[in-house]
């Protein structure tokens, strides 16, 4: 390679590389080109406040994780002993209430839009699994509080889990096990599911209105909107 060659020639050469890495990059670029991953425009039919609840859910998740990380920094006892710790715990609780509220409203909205249409079933399903994983994460959070709530919830919930054989392996009265699930395993699962969900949304685009047909005699620019 001489320095005089045009940079795109390097790119072209790289794109032709027949190794695993090159293949993965080509696949990624084909499935999700940068302008689809981070588009600076959106379909004209996205004209409703209901679309905000997806991004609000992600924003609340960010606050949940952020406040959870502060609690993790100081350890599980901190919030019982310090007023600042108790305040961070309050933030963690209220951001979880917001997270689940936003997510459920997002779910209602996507249901009434039948948002699984047009090869978007996997987007719907990753969302549902993320919802169930969030419920599990919140539940293990209640178990990890080390107060009357945790005592009562664990001794009650054990019966349900034991009745279907899960309790033998997932012991809600084992504080250490529940704390690990709450701060490692389930958040990791939610993180993976969220990224997967968002990538699928970007890859397929936002679902068009039911029965909508793209205006054929117009190009896909913003000036189309005038009939």
């Amino acid at each position, binding site marked *: 390679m001489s320095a005089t060659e045009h940079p795109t020639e390097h790119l072209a050469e790289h794109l032709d590389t027949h190794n695993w890495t090159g293949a993965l990059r080509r696949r990624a670029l084909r499935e999700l080109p940068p302008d689809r991953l981070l588009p600076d425009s959106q379909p*004209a039919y996205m*004209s*409703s*406040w*209901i679309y*905000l*609840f997806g991004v609000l859910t992600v924003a609340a998740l960010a606050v949940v994780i952020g406040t959870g990380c502060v609690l993790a920094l100081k350890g599980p006892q901190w919030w019982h002993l310090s*007023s*600042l710790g*108790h*305040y961070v715990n*309050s933030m963690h609780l209220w951001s979880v*209430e917001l997270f689940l*509220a936003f997510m*459920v*409203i997002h779910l*209602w*909205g996507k249901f009434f839009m039948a948002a699984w249409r047009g090869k978007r079933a996997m987007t719907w399903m990753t969302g549902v699994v993320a919802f169930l994983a969030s419920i599990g994460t919140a539940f293990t959070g209640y178990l990890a509080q080390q107060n009357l709530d945790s005592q009562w919830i664990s001794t009650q919930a054990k019966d349900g889990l034991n009745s279907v054989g899960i309790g033998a392996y997932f012991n809600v009265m084992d504080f250490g096990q529940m704390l690990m699930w709450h701060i490692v395993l389930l958040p990791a699962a939610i993180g993976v599911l969220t990224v997967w969900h968002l990538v699928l949304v970007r890859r397929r685009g936002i679902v068009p209105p039911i029965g909508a047909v793209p205006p054929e005699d117009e190009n896909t620019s*913003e000036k189309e*909107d*005038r009939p």
Partner: protein
Amino acid sequence: MLTLPPLPARLLAAPIDLNGPGHYLHWGVIQISVANLVVIGLMLIAFVAAILLPFPRKRGRR
């Protein structure tokens, strides 16, 4: 002698104390706390408002 809690505790004390006996509504088989009812009510209001309120049309669009 009057002893005040340390400053951070006073700054971080909640003005509205939700501890104390809970308020519950009973309606046949249904029992629900006022707090949960408020949360669910706000969610429904947000959902209906999100659908019904007109979304501003941006100038750049036309």
